[in-house]
């Protein structure tokens, strides 16, 4: 879990844009509709009154499994998160159900922040990728996040303040 320092404040918490979960959601809807597609064929068979309850039972169990699949997709989506605090940037990457990657770096290490809007759909729905270059010259990309401009401005504003504090901490050479 996230442990904040006493003077640290959470500035923004960003999940992926909802478009990232649209594909899995459509798959879940399609899977949920499958038992209904076969239902009209069931009425034509003999002994339908005996078979129909069994079919309904199997459909209910199928919907339980589909619901679980949808929940797993949502957990995967929800636990992927970018947190910008007044001191650092934390990126949590949920990979599958129980595997997580946790990356963080101090804001004073940020050298450059750029944003990339990958295409028409991203422009229309207002999401993009945030690319952060750190002092170690490694690029750090966070994909498909909403409010990219707000995130960029926050990072730049607070990284500038954090760098100024670091420089003040060292003092001037003549002092």
């Amino acid at each position, binding site marked *: *879990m*996230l442990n904040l320092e006493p003077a640290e404040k959470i500035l923004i*918490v960003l999940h992926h844009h909802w478009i990232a979960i649209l594909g899995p959601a459509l798959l879940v809807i399609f899977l949920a509709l499958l038992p209904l597609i076969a239902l009209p064929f069931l009425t034509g068979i003999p*002994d339908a009154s*005996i*078979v129909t*309850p*069994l079919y*309904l*039972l199997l459909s*209910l*169990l199928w*919907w*339980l499994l589909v*619901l*679980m699949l949808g*929940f*797993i997709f*949502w*957990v995967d989506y*929800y*636990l992927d*998160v970018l*947190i910008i605090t007044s001191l650092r940037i934390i990126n*949590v990457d*949920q990979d599958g*159900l*129980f595997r*997580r990657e946790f990356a963080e770096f101090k804001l004073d290490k940020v050298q450059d922040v750029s944003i990339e809007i990958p295409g028409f759909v991203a422009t229309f729905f207002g999401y993009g990728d945030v690319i952060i270059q750190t002092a170690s010259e490694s690029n750090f990309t966070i994909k498909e996040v909403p409010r990219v401009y707000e995130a960029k401005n926050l990072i730049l504003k607070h990284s500038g303040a954090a760098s100024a504090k670091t420089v003040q901490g060292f003092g001037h050479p003549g002092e």
Partner: protein
Amino acid sequence: MALAFIFLMIFFAAYFIFAGAIIYHLKIYAFSRSANWMVNLFLVVSALLAVLAIIVFWKINWPELWTLYVKP
């Protein structure tokens, strides 16, 4: 019928143990309370489907189904 009921109960037990593991994981790492809303929705819908499945299970004419399709 008894065998089918045992299978159904095993299915529910496995399902809700797995769901519990996911919810436990989510509760540890969730960063906001909005996760509670989704967890509650998932639990209510899955409980509703499970109850409906048990009701439908008792509506099935198992002896007739058995004689029709398994041992004619």
